[in-house]
């Protein structure tokens, strides 16, 4: 599986090398709105994550890769590991950019202080990873093109369900972020979601006709 992760970085390295530069430059556009800065950071990180399947799809290398001494299961697992690793890189870049702009503009942009914080970082990481674990089963089931078309609709439904769930419990998530129990439950929920996502991805990819 590590060989496959290495392969993912080897084939994307040419595309990932200039990303830090774009990350810092692009985020500069959104420094005056904490929410936009956060959203742009998430989207850039997600773009880095999907660069691997996009490249594989463009060059139609799936069959050649499957002729190597690997299993479909190891391909799926390695994709999760690579994606999580890239998400980690995205978070670092997000923090570096945020800190950089906070120090440059200082008092002029108060909006970044809440986003580039421990709490903000946790939300960034959780949201980025959530996007990945929701996207990958769709990718392995439908292929990258269809998955990218379906994903926005899927996310809209998912967000609506989560929002309705929160509304119906009359709990404010912002006030609940601090208690350790809430963080633990969030972690548990995310871990279960990741396991379910991996299970669905493996099942879908094994059934996929290549």
């Amino acid at each position, binding site marked *: 599986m590590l*060989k496959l992760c290495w*392969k993912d970085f*080897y*084939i994307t390295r040419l595309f990932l090398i200039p990303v830090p530069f774009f990350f810092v430059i692009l985020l500069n556009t959104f420094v005056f709105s904490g929410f936009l800065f956060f959203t742009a950071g998430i989207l850039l990180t997600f773009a880095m994550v999907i660069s691997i399947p996009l*490249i594989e799809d463009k060059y139609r290398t799936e069959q050649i890769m499957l002729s*190597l001494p690997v*299993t479909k299961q190891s391909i799926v697992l390695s994709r999760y590991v690579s994606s999580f690793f890239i998400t980690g890189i995205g978070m670092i870049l997000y923090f570096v950019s945020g800190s950089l702009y906070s120090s440059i503009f200082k008092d002029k942009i108060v909006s970044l202080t809440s986003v580039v914080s421990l709490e903000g970082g946790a939300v960034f990481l959780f949201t980025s990873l959530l996007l990945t674990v929701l996207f990958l089963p769709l990718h392995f089931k439908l292929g990258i093109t269809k998955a990218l078309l379906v994903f926005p609709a899927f996310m809209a439904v998912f967000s609506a369900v989560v929002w309705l769930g929160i509304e119906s419990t009359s709990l404010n998530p912002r006030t609940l972020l601090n208690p350790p129990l809430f963080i633990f439950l969030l972690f548990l929920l995310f871990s279960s979601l990741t396991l379910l996502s991996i299970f669905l991805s493996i099942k879908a990819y094994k059934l996929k*006709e290549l």
Partner: protein
Amino acid sequence: MEPALEINKLRKEYKDFKLNDISLHLPSGYIMGLIGPNGAGKTTLIKLILNMTQRKSGEIKVFGLDNLTHETDIKSRIGFVHEEPHYYGYLKVKEIRSLFSRFYTNWNNDLFFSLCGEFSLPLNKRIAALSRGTKMKLSLALALSHDADFLLMDEPTTGLDPVFRRDLLRKFSEVIQNENKTVLFSTHITSDLERTADYITYIQKGEILFSCTKDHLFETWGLVKGGNEVLNRETHRFFKGVQRGPYSFKALTADKEKVRRAFSGKNILIDKPSLDDIMFLLSKGEINA
């Protein structure tokens, strides 16, 4: 010695096509040609061997190992050459080597570079800039450089110029000089098989119509020619496929001696069939079960 490939009652179903309980046996150290018309199931069979697609039922053993439970062991002993080799177009030939070599414990860099020299492969050229024939050479170099015991090739000669095709076929023969090496290649260019194959397997509409040694095929099968007056319901049953003209017919038999006896005294001619004749009459002629 374990057979290189053993397939038992393999079934795969699509909406409009199925591989119908096929069985196949390929001893180690031989070249088997898999022929059949387009859409016959050749590529599906190769994909099933490599576990790229899921079977409905049946069993595939490579070197005596089940291809589902020993997938990585088996694949590390297989060299695969695809009909249209797709690699990352922006990588150079030498980078593709770096990528592939990590997956094989038996990878031999010296052999790879020697094959690159033999095939005139430009190490510093990007894949996107290579012609189809050159990509096929690269594919073959990659397949041979990890000392594969079993070469699996899906239409490797399709679309190649005659000179390179001959080179490729010569290379196959060289590869199996080492008697542990086995080659299975699918093609619809029958002349390639007449030059190199030891075994011929004919697949049509998802069924194997025959699988035997090339020598046996040419010794026992015959192309029968004669006037239409000798062809009737009784004599028709001797043939696997018949093509009728206005006055004469051409038919294929799997037992030319039997036909010779049955048609004794009648004006017929029995020739050695070419693989083209066999393929044509089995796919286009009036078929007898």
